[in-house]
């Protein structure tokens, strides 16, 4: 089937088998391998991307369902060579170890902060409860999301404020 999808701002026209899952379309047709496959049961969230701004598990969406829609993946977060505040915060707060869950976790957080710019710890934990991380124990992921939320909120209040979260080190 022919589909036309906008991914990270770029339009793609592709011929896909009707049963192709969105995650395999992104990974194998477009070679965007940031979204990972971890479970088969829509449990782990490693494949999370934004579909028209909503976080979805791309292992449970057919590529044909994305026809005419807009998708944002982790590869599309960087702007003009500048990391997204969530990417910076994950680095700064040591919110990743093996890195396999990271793209999905960041995309889920992206939508969460859109809905709730300054979430409490409990709200973050609930918000990312569809994403499994086997390495970090989540403490630093929660910290990173809250920290990025503060940066994004400050940027929204002052569009000229491009203050960065630069890891402060020791």
């Amino acid at each position, binding site marked *: 089937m022919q589909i036309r999808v906008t991914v990270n701002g770029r339009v793609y026209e592709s011929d896909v088998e009707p049963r192709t899952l969105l995650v395999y379309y992104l990974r194998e047709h477009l070679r965007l391998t940031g979204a990972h496959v971890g479970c088969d049961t829509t*449990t782990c969230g490693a494949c999370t991307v934004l579909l028209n701004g909503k976080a979805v598990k791309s292992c449970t969406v057919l590529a044909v369902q994305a026809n005419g829609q807009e998708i944002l993946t982790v590869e599309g977060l960087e702007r003009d060579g500048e990391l997204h505040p969530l990417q910076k915060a994950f680095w*700064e707060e*040591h919110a990743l170890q093996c890195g396999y869950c990271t793209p999905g976790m960041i995309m889920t957080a992206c939508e969460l902060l859109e809905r709730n710019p300054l979430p409490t710890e409990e709200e973050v934990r609930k918000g990312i409860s569809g994403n499994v991380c086997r390495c*970090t124990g989540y403490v630093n992921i929660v910290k990173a999301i809250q920290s990025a939320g503060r940066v994004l909120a400050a940027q929204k209040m002052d569009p000229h404020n491009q203050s960065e979260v630069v890891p402060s080190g020791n």
Partner: protein
Amino acid sequence: MAINQCELRPMGKSIHRKEDPRFIRGQGRYVDDIVLPNMLHMSIVRSPYAHARIKSINTDAAYQVPGVKLIITGEDLAKLKLAWIPTMAGDVQMVLAVGKVLYQYQEVAAVVAETRAAAVDAAQLVEVEYEALPVVVDPFRAIQPDAPVLRDDREKKSNHIWHWEAGDREKTEEIFKDAPVVVSQDVRFQRVHPSPLEPCGCIADYNKGTGKLTWYVTSQAPHAHRTVLAMVSGLPEHKIHVISPDVGGGFGNKVPVYPGYVCAIVASLQLGQPVKWIETRTENIASTGFARDYHMKAEIAADENGKVLALRVKTLADHGAFDAAADPTKFPAGLFSIVTGSYDFQQAFVEVDGVYTNKAPGGVAYRCSFRVTEAAYLIERTMDVLARKLNMDPADLRLRNFIKKEQFPYQSPTGWTYDSGDYEQTFKLALEKIGYQELRKEQAEKRARGELMGIGISTFTEVVGAGPSHSFDIMGIKMFDSAEIRVHPTGKVIARLGVRHQGQGHETTFAQIIAEELGLTTDDVLVEEGDTDTAPYGLGTYASRSTPTAGGAAALCARRIREKAKKIAAHLLEVGEEDVAWNGEAFQVKGLPSRKVTMGEVALAAYTNLPEGMEPGLEATYYYDPPNLTFPHGAYIAVVDIDKGTGAVKVRRFLAVDDCGNVINPMIVEGQVHGGLTEGFAIAFMQDIPFDEDGNCLAPNWMDYLVPTALDSPHWETDRTVTPSPHHPIGAKGVGESPNVGSPAAFVNAVVDALAPFGVEHIDMPIFPWKVWEILRKSGVTE
């Protein structure tokens, strides 16, 4: 963007990770991200039965699926003498079933096709006719004389695999005979699975022209895998190139060689095309290396004052259908005899019997140094049983029995020489920091009001860093590790090691070690692992061995570089070598700190301006065989509240005070502790792989095998003490597994403590809410 990597003397600092920039951009390169030209895909046909004879396999319909290139069965592999392969534990295992299957989900055939979907479609059309055989699930049933013998390929016609013991049976018996107090507790450590987020997988790429096999595999031990492959397949070892790309978590799951790997390699050898095999989550849980499954009994003999005298342990180890445990070869029960823990027992005797059942094979070290988790859980659980019997506070009982600081190096009754430790200091810090006395008061008040609150303690000792080659080997290969450092003319460094990280942050921490030793910044040092064509030989990353072994090699290799550099520095400074001193950042003339040369200047001279007669270049390799293991320890305290209506346990607080010796990067150590505690929590409360009486695996996916989310996981508090290892080059001990080893007992002890008023002495893990609810219901607390 370089951040905080421009500082000299990086040791002990929270340098942000060098590996993160690729992962946060989605640019990690895991095995399934790799696509090769003309690559084929493989899918595996698995047995629905736990024990059955294979009457026939019909592949006709499967071959009709467009794109199918090859279907391999056990008979095909038998012709190549590859139907069976050796396991690391000295057993053999089937690659594809020949004659019969021995567990559900066992590999029966492999289908190779042009697309992933075609391979899966065709696998479903492979027709296998089975004749069911009697199933043995319970290991206690397996060792009864009339139990069906599962492994008819073996000479020994019984399901008993091996008997192993440590310590002194007679002297232990003598103490038990006259002991004033004896407690006994049966403890099960359930079957769990490491379940890293990235399942196992590989691409085998055999090039007929060069005769070289390139094998991309998500491996914790690429060099060992290459050697095993060479031995099994007959391919020359120098023509096997193993590349372990970014690994999406391992936790012991990615140490063994699995049947799917062998099938992918055979298919690529036959077809001359790359063959990719990526397992599903179900395949991962149901067929690759499980962990634990120990049925243990511990007895402690003590005096009336709570001084422990002797420990006796008897264990039945369920290994499934093949003994595919990933232990050092001379240690069939791993390092389980560390079970005397942090306590000064006069005598101990430990025995373990391994048995076969109709379950998937394994026995891997899941975030654990070879059965140390089972040992730590058993002794910490049983110490609480003794405290209860003596009506003592479990904290007081521990303080009375710790091995004292001045007893190190300490000779344990089962033969270990503990390197260093200060158990009392670590435990007292934990008691003070969590406010132990206040918590006990609060608990007393709550009990009076009928509320359920528990406090659980675990003061464990680990043994990691295998290891000294006089004792530790895998299939004869000694368990040393290695580092190779190349300093280039502009003072930039590439370092390669024989281990393979899976999230532990070696690209950062090993850069810190090397930068510290060479007077450079971590930005100057690139660490590479996982490529057997470029990295020196090593046994891999598991059992918290990377820092004790390869970390030692990295430091000593850098010091070897510095020895040569010093000679070049003397030449540049125009003084004798004896007049040159290393000040931590540069070489200087003794007594004249202003006359100095940096490592960067020395590096350039090593290629441009050498002393007469000196060999050019600035490179070194170091193979480090540690003199002993290292013995990290910790004091963990859990505080739980139990909901009387539902039996749900809430972990209100958890404090982990770890002592892993000198710390390379505090941020990374804390991250390791957080992750390990979460896995320990999961094992205590969620993770379990049960089987029904027909051998059906009841938790072969993440809907039934429960892994914790952010909502389940408690908030962790951490702290540490530092008792350096006296024999390690930088005084470090390793930390990745301590929290997983030490924490399960703290959780269970806390729940049992909360339920003690109802006479509860023990609950087997995982502590699901229904188990607690049943206790409460039977006690009349809830309806």
